[in-house]
């Protein structure tokens, strides 16, 4: 199962954590892994082959043969978890290499700002997100926890972001990576992707995906909107653990941000949320 099989949505709309600018003829960018950016990447078309080089990477990924109209996932040559999903219209393809500018998106989950009076008095805000299985294989387990919190953030931000998952390597885990995410005017959030251990028994593999979340001074996540937790490790006792997730189905994630009275605004704070899923394939 590909990493992009897990998708975070606000209602029915996918949450986007990176904004992109730039493409090549015949190619429309549909999604970008948060792990890519921000920065300047490159798209290269040669014949019907398309390749992606993520910002800061030293090499293009393996070129994908896109001889037929459709959607393809391009992967960076150094880190295959830095992927780009594109829709290709072969009739318009022409040899070209072009920069793709990736920038963080803020405020993509919090659709409105808090009034100053509400902030001064302190407030609590809860956002409902959905974790969809948009792949073609059922997931066995989905875990959600908080990680990489920026202790210097003066305020939490909800935020949301999200994005799609990426597949963890079927070997030893590696460190987490940042995924910028947006938030509202009062705060900001970021998501970081976790990479961790991978192999589960029986050939199952673990995947890690970015999820939107609100973090900061007081951020909690919940699967039932009743009991909120702030787990810091994937296998922490209070990590959220969801059961199987069928293809096309979703789990509900509640993210609650508590803003202490008298906080100041910071639209660019970043915070992380981490998730993982496993599947048999």
């Amino acid at each position, binding site marked *: 199962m590909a990493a992009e099989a897990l998708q975070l949505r606000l209602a029915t709309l996918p949450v986007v954590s990176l904004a992109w*600018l*730039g*493409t*090549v*003829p*015949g190619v*429309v960018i549909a999604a970008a892994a948060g792990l890519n*950016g*921000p*920065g*300047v990447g490159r798209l290269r078309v040669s014949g019907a082959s398309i390749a992606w080089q993520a*910002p*800061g990477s030293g090499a293009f990924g393996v070129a994908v043969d896109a001889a037929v109209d459709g959607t393809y996932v391009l992967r960076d040559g150094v880190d295959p978890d830095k992927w780009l999903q594109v829709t290709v*219209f072969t009739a*318009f393809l022409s040899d070209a290499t072009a920069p793709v*500018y*990736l*920038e963080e998106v*803020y*405020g993509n989950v*919090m*659709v*409105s*700002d808090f009034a100053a009076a509400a902030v001064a008095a302190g407030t609590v805000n809860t956002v409902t997100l959905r974790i969809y299985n948009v792949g073609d294989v059922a997931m066995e387990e989905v875990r959600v926890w908080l990680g990489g919190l920026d202790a210097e953030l003066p305020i939490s931000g909800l935020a949301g972001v999200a994005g799609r998952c990426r597949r963890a390597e079927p070997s030893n885990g590696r460190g987490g990576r940042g995924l910028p995410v947006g938030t*509202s*005017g009062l705060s900001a959030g970021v998501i970081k992707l976790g990479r961790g251990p991978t192999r589960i028994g029986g050939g199952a593999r673990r995947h890690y995906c970015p999820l939107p979340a609100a973090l900061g001074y007081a951020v909690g996540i919940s699967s039932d909107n009743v009991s909120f937790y702030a787990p810091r490790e994937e296998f922490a006792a209070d990590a959220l653990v969801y059961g199987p997730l069928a293809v096309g189905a979703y789990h509900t994630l509640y993210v609650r941000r508590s803003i202490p009275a008298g906080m100041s*605004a*910071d*639209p*660019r704070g970043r915070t992380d949320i981490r998730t993982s899923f496993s599947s048999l394939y």
Partner: protein
Amino acid sequence: MAITSINQTRSGDMVLVTALSDLAGARFYWYFDGAYVGATGGGARGFALSPGEQARVAVLDSVDPAFDPIADGPIGYPGRVTLEWVRPIGTEDIAWYLVEQRKNGGAYVTLARVRHRPGRWSYRYTTGRLDDLANYVWRITPIDAVGNLSPDPVINASRLIVRWPDAPAFAAAYDAISDRVIVEAA
């Protein structure tokens, strides 16, 4: 980074900003109102400003071929948005693209009409300065040669604009007795 001086010269709606660097062979990376707008081999770039408009221009110089103007750029809070769209597939009768914007749920206002060019794959349009903490929606609609709008916009984008840090709130008043302008926190 060793920019030694920055000067600006205005001519009509254009402001030419010139930067000098003591780095040999440096490239200059330009940021306009917090957004990266391009690089130049020489230390000069022009910016269009409407009468009375003010903007913030930042420039970095670097000789590092791996310099990434976004990842390595200054933290910015862009006050403008660049829209990008791809020509509609399967629709050949296009003459223009109508670029519209609405703010905080208000009525759509036309920003521009961009000419369609056969053979061109994608287009870009950069908005004017946007207001802090306002919700904007942009709609780009193809128009045929006789002015009919397509029922299917090629873009429906929205964004909450957050510009930070906020400017300090202050009030300025002329005091005739002291013949001074007094600036006070509002």
